[in-house]
């Protein structure tokens, strides 16, 4: 009887020891200086560029849920990609690239849902004066105009609005500098025409 009962506890002990060792290794890694340093770096970058991330997500999302999902995906890709970021390009360029690419790859057949959503869906916003109403209209109008553009054009106009130099826009989008200039000119005309025709 004892002969058949012995191997099972031994196997269980072995498995338990292996699990304990794995848990110790994970906890050691979590407390390692490299990990702490990487976390600090990530937190600093995310805090400094939080609005860049949110703005990109806001321009690509079609609902509040979508916005949250895209933001989380962006943060994960930034966290994973930070190690391989070599600093050859500007940090803001790299963040734009990661966030825009993440939002583009997150899109999944949402054409039947509204193309853009209002700030009210994002959260409770305090309004101070009557002037805010017209400004708010402009914000919503600009958002709907950007949301009606194709993927790459959205990225170009966003970066132009953020006053990024043409070199940086060209680097992120993969277009030539002259092509970026032409595209920006055309996009502005197209947006102005959309406003005139109320074709949004």
């Amino acid at each position: 009887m004892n002969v058949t009962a012995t191997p099972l506890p031994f196997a269980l002990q072995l498995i338990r020891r292996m699990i304990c060792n794995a848990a110790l290794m994970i906890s050691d890694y979590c407390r390692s200086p490299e990990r702490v340093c990487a976390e600090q770096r990530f937190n600093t970058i995310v805090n400094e560029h939080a609005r860049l991330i949110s703005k990109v997500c806001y321009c690509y999302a079609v609902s509040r849920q979508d916005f949250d999902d895209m933001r989380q995906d962006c943060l994960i890709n930034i966290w994973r990609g930070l190690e391989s970021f070599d600093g050859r390009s500007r940090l803001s360029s790299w963040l734009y690239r990661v966030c825009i690419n993440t939002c583009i790859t997150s899109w999944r057949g949402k054409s039947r849902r509204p193309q853009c959503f209002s700030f009210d869906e994002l959260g409770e916003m305090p309004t101070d004066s009557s002037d805010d109403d017209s400004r708010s209209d402009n914000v919503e109008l600009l958002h709907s105009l950007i949301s009606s553009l194709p993927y790459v054009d959205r990225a170009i106009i966003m970066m132009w609005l953020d006053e990024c130099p043409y070199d940086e826009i060209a680097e992120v989008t993969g277009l030539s500098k002259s092509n970026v200039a032409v595209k920006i000119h055309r996009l502005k005309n197209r947006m102005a025409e959309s406003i005139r025709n109320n074709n949004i």
Partner: protein
Amino acid sequence: MTDNEMRRAWNDTDSRLKEIETHNRTPLDSGRRTALANLAQRYLKFSRLSLIMTLCSPCYMLSSVFTDDWRYIAALCFSIYFAVAGVMDYWLYRGVSSIDVGSMTVSEVARKSIFYRRRHLQFIAVLIPMAVIAIGITAYAFGFDRGIIACMACGAIVGMAIGSRQLIAFMDDYRTLRRL
């Protein structure tokens, strides 16, 4: 809207997002898989499932409900169907996995992303007629038994109800992709 008005509206967006950031900050969920990784995993899962089904399809040959010739034809039809579906899914998995959001340019990612989504929809368009043919052959192989035909008719009604809704969504997606 002039350039200055656009930039002002954009700065307003900036300040409003800042307020939202302070009110509704969500922490990073480190255990989460991104939408792209999820999609790649789904393709891989389906390609593995199709491979298993391709290998299992010859079991039709052992079935006693078919007459001699039809058991081979049905087995062959389903094997081909699942093999094609598996190859398509694996090809999509490889393609989607090759997208690197950290190093590729936006144009490249957008081009690849649209390309694979379009292929996904085109593959569906190929697989649906193949499935209809395979099921039709199975129905014929059963010798139009009344019970079987009644069951298949029920299945077809439910399938058409679900399928028509999916078809509209599918066409919408395809139309949207052509605009992007």
